[in-house]
């Protein structure tokens, strides 16, 4: 009976498992193989170069800059969106009739098509006709070139990244806040704790697992950022927004260094894997 059940179970997962093998495992292994070659993605010959691509990575100033940009982007987007998401969740936790409406409004960027949103943001940041600079010009300030300015481009694309992520953090924190045991708050209130003290000593510590979840998924998500930056700046100016996935794309598909791009891909994979392991460890730690 048990083995029959097992057979049925295997049969049931077979379609998904086949797709997983064909579209995830196989390309993954194939890219590992390509990362050891100097293949251009077209040539009939795939020249084996060993670990040369990986050792070149460490000496490539463009890769190192790209790595730095990715770290700055991911850390700032994750932290700021988490703090803001928590703030919104906290403000909207009281059962106002309008709370559901605002929650929907703040969540809508999460489900908005990124490419469409990126195009709109591009218009907003337009140095000539965009509302930001038009507004600044009206009060006598010459606004920056935003997406064309190496000092402001990363700020601009990070703003979009944060805008896109706040809603997700807010929803998770909202769920977390509503599931907190009221007994702790009642006990603390009896001891005379109010306002900030409740927040500092009760709410925030109780939300630790939720915060970790939001931070780590945020990190995994933003390390892989591609679409809106591709649309808005394509990595420029002066490489100031050239995140790793964009660097990978340009190496592989613009200048035909597919072997090298595969090596970049594995580094990216390493970062995401490390973040995931961190999450597991943390989860294990809090479950004890």
């Amino acid at each position, binding site marked *: 009976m048990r083995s029959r059940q097992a057979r049925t179970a295997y049969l049931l997962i077979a379609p998904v498992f*086949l797709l997983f093998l064909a579209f995830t495992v196989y390309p993954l292994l194939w890219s590992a193989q390509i990362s050891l070659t100097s293949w251009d*993605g*077209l*040539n009939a010959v795939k020249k084996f170069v060993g670990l040369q691509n990986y050792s070149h990575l460490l000496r490539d100033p463009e890769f190192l800059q790209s790595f730095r940009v990715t770290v700055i982007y991911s850390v700032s987007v994750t932290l700021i969106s988490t703090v803001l998401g928590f703030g919104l969740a906290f403000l909207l936790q009281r059962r106002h009739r309008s709370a559901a409406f605002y929650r929907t409004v703040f969540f809508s960027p999460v489900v908005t098509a990124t490419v469409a949103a990126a195009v709109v943001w591009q218009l907003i940041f337009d140095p*000539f006709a965009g509302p930001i600079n038009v507004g600044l010009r009206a009060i006598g300030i010459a606004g920056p070139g935003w997406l064309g300015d190496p000092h402001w481009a990363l700020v601009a694309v990070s703003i979009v990244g944060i805008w896109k992520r706040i809603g997700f953090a807010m929803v998770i924190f909202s769920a977390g806040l509503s599931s907190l045991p009221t007994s702790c708050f009642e006990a603390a209130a009896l001891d005379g704790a109010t306002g900030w003290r409740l927040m500092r000593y009760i709410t925030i510590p109780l939300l630790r697992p939720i915060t970790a979840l939001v931070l780590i998924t945020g990190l995994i998500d933003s390390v892989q950022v591609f679409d809106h930056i591709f649309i808005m700046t394509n990595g420029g100016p002066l490489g100031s927004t050239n995140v790793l996935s964009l660097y990978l794309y*340009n190496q592989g598909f613009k200048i*035909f*260094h597919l072997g090298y791009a595969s090596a970049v891909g594995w580094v990216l994979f390493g970062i995401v894997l490390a973040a995931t392991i961190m999450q597991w460890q943390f989860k294990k730690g809090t479950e004890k």
Partner: protein
Amino acid sequence: MFASKSRKIAALLSLSLTAGLLLTANPAIAAKKSKPVTLQFWNYWDGENGKALSTLVAQFNKSHRGIIVKPVTFPWGDLLPKIQSAIAAGTTPALAATDIAWMANLHQSGKLLDLGAALGGKKKSIKKVTGDIYPQLLTYSMYKGKLQSLPASTNNLALFYNKDLFRRAGLNPNNPPQTWAEMRADALKISQLGGGIQGMEIYTQPGEGLTWQFQPYLWQTGAGFLNKSNTAPTFNSDAGRKALQFLVDLINVDKSATAGQWGAFDKGAAGMRIDGSWMVSGYRQNAPFEFGTAMLPSPDGVSRATNMGGEQIMAFKGNKARNAAAATFIKWFTSTSVQAKWDVATNFMPTRASVASSTTMLRHLVNEPALNAFVNQQKYAQARPAIAQYPAVSDAFSKALEPAFYGTTSVADALAAADAAVRKALAGS
């Protein structure tokens, strides 16, 4: 009972899904070969160009029984990755038209059909096929003595200018600049209109866009890009520095141009821009201003040069019937009469002398005078190096130049860095 029944149904469903997946992985089992040869034709011609292609293809399908050509359009940036994965997966389309800049790499794939052989073999027939196609364009078509693609279209870069802004700045809208000095003076006057308006819009974002826009300046000063054998850069010279300094001064000395995003001219926020003939119909329909075109200004008004762009059409090797059908389509599409219709509909430039002198084309030029600058310039159009390392060379070159536009590196240092980076890219590391 019910539970076991539903489990059986689920298992059956799952089994059929799995079988379906396995079957679709092998198209030979999934669908039996049907008689008319269907040719997928991958390209990136969208908008008006896409419509023009559909019209022509419909005519072909009607006049050629047994062959059905189906155009499939991708965004420009997606086409090459699609071809790369199709080559890897062995699912290449029968036909494709791609940017000439990618041709050297595509030739090396070993998957392109030898058109000389497919259209009759022997050298004589190659000449018969190519006929009066401009020889510069054929540099992208040949690989190891074999004809593996044909020019499907060509274009070049000329000066677009905003007549409304010329008027507002007190300039004669019918007298566009001929020399660099005139262009600089006009740009300065227009930028002095204020309100964020640029005199001249310069492409400063790294990538082939920057390289291809800047190369005409290098050719005009005589600096060139690579040497004749395409083995070393030639731009790191006094002439090269003069070319780059000219543009950098517009940005950093005159402040009549800005480094950064591209697109100001389209909105009427820049007086001039260099761009291709494919922009003409779009501006005619949508530009919120009156525009004009002129040949690219040169240092002295005499030493003309522009960059040659365009697409090549090719067939990927398939079975005998597919190869023959693909070759038939390519021959038809590149013929004088079809090319004349194609150029009129798209505002691309003629690839053959016979197209340029055809009545269809001549009549079109009367209707769209903005094309004259491009047609008159075609003879000065230079080809970018048709080598496999070119995409990497262009990328390295543009990235080294970008800081000069932002004033963070001197012109001399930027070109020296570009020289080193290009040598490295040529060596393939």
